[in-house]
């Protein structure tokens, strides 16, 4: 500490004087974060502008990615692919993740064992996504190849399971995505469950509820804001996941509703095409990137709103 700050300390303590170095640093740090985000969004928007001006909103309803005769770009299949693959991943990972979180927040296991399991689940988040991709190629694709044909044969009348079945497909990508978002859901849900005040549990037992009634009737509703937050984070991660998806989804430019067909996502589109893209195609890819950013933002805003409502409805409980 220098003399200068020492002489400032008493004045800082005086009521009404709001300046201190620490506060300044936190201000600068948060402003820099916001500024970075704004800069990224602005530079993407600027570079995407030629495509935005050229294609307008039709970009989101067009099925094409052609560099000549004539040049035409649209992201409808990739938009649908992003939505479907993330939703399915969430559909699979959410129940599983919450159940794991309940298991790890109750006293079913001795604490050392419980912590080991928790650690292992959270370790899933530390695996690089390219490893998930390789694992998907080595393990999940052969499984999907084997079961895909019979599924398409039996349920092919549903658009969701239309054949021909392919190993590199929406299903494969969704399964691996589900595993990738599982630790996010588990970790945050568990923290929320552990944070539920003990009196609530005791109160529930006191009026004669069983353990399961307590978990589903009291603990889960109380922890709901945390679980919703976990879901939003997981959804965001699933939407933006690139490497593993690009390796597994089959990168098809066609619009499909079938889980057994190859598909594509916005993130995998950008990863695939950017390397060799030129002129308008670069701009179109940045347009797609901008759209992806907007959608992630939208998911977060919706999540935030849901979170607030949920918090309000249970605020009496706390």
């Amino acid at each position, binding site marked *: 500490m220098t003399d200068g700050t020492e002489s400032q300390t008493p004045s800082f303590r005086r009521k009404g004087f709001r300046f201190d170095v620490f506060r300044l640093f936190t201000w600068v740090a948060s402003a820099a974060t916001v500024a970075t985000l704004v800069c990224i969004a602005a530079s993407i928007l600027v570079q995407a502008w030629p495509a935005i001006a050229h294609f307008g909103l039709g970009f989101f309803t067009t*099925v*094409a*990615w*052609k*560099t*000549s*005769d004539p040049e035409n770009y649209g992201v409808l299949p990739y938009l649908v692919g992003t939505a479907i693959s993330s939703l399915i991943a969430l559909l699979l990972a959410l129940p599983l993740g919450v159940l794991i979180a309940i298991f790890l927040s109750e006293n079913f296991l001795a604490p050392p064992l419980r912590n080991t399991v928790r650690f292992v689940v959270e370790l899933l988040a530390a695996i690089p996504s390219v490893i998930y991709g390789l694992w998907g*190629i080595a393990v999940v*694709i*052969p499984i999907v*190849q084997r079961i895909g044909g019979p599924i398409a044969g039996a349920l092919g009348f549903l658009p969701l399971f239309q054949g*021909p079945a*392919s*190993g*590199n497909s929406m299903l494969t990508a969704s399964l691996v995505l589900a595993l990738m978002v599982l630790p996010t859901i588990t970790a945050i849900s568990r923290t929320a469950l552990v944070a539920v005040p003990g009196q609530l549990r005791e109160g529930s037992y006191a009026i004669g509820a069983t353990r399961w009634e307590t978990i589903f009737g009291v603990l889960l509703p109380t922890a709901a804001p945390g679980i919703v937050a976990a879901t939003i984070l997981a959804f965001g991660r699933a939407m933006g996941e690139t490497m593993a998806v*690009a390796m597994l989804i*089959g*990168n*098809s*430019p*066609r619009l499909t509703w079938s889980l057994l067909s*190859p598909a594509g996502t916005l993130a995998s589109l950008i*990863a*695939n*095409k950017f*390397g*060799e*893209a*030129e002129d308008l*195609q670069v701009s179109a890819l940045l347009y797609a990137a901008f759209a992806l950013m907007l959608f992630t933002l939208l998911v977060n805003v919706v999540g935030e709103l849901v979170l607030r409502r949920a918090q309000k409805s249970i605020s009496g409980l706390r």
Partner: protein
Amino acid sequence: MKTTSSRFAGLIALIALSPLSVYAATQLQGAGATFPAPLYQRWIAEFSKANPGIQINYQGVGSGAGIKQFTDGLVTFGASDAAMTDAQIEKVKQGVVLIPATAGSIVLAYNLPGVETLKLSREAYVGIFLGKITKWSDPAIAKTNEGVKIPDLNITVCTRSDSSGTNFVFTGHLSAVSSDFKSQVGQGTSVTWPAGVAGQGNDGVTALIKQTQGAIGYVEYGYAKNNKLPFAQLQNKAGEFVAASPESGAATLNTTQFPANILRAWPSDPDGKDAYPIATFTWLLLYKTYSDKDKLAALKKFVTYGLTDGQKLSNDLGYIPMPAEVVQKCEAALNSVQ
């Protein structure tokens, strides 16, 4: 503390002085197509042994990025599988000289257990890539493969997910052969394929073919050869079934007619009984004039090496050595660079 800082100072001095310890070498920067990159790297390695005063660095960043860096003047030379269009050439102030540097074939590699030779008629392979033929038991395939036991599998078409010169050449051939393909898909570095799964780069497509029974996909001849993937004999314009090889590729290149003013042409559907139907040149992009005469001399020496001795390395790496006639034209074009 003292020893660390003095060591640190020593290190700084070393870094600062190191350019002086090597005598000033002429540096050439190149960037572009990935397809010829293995051959160019080999040329550079061999050439550098004989010419230690010239340092060459080639980055396989893709044809599109290569053209861009070349146009922006960031490199000494560029490289592209799709040459350069007239519009692109106009943007380069110093002028452009296109030099075909090597050539390659594109093969249809497949994964069919027990099938060692496969003959595909034009009707068959166009139908497969249009998504109209979906089973290996299709009569269009059976017709040309009497006596071959082809498993009854679904066809998985494997395509490139990235924009690439390979796409451009392959879709160019299919468009030349089939008016349906031309109207429904068309030629381009990236097209909307009506069927199949897609992988990134030759590696990605090769991996897809290897992991999927019943797969067929287009890759550079060298990749199929190195990965020991079987590939189909294709029916050429004369009606013969021809396998890709350096000889059949050379037969294709021999039929190529260049326009008078520029060395740019694609043999999209070659004549000739022995010609393999899908082969293409790949180009080095040079400026018409260079202000740095040392660089100019080094570059000319390197390209001359590539066109002469360098061609002998082609076979090993899965490329097609260029016909002598084409090499002569290239040397003449190289002489016009100043």
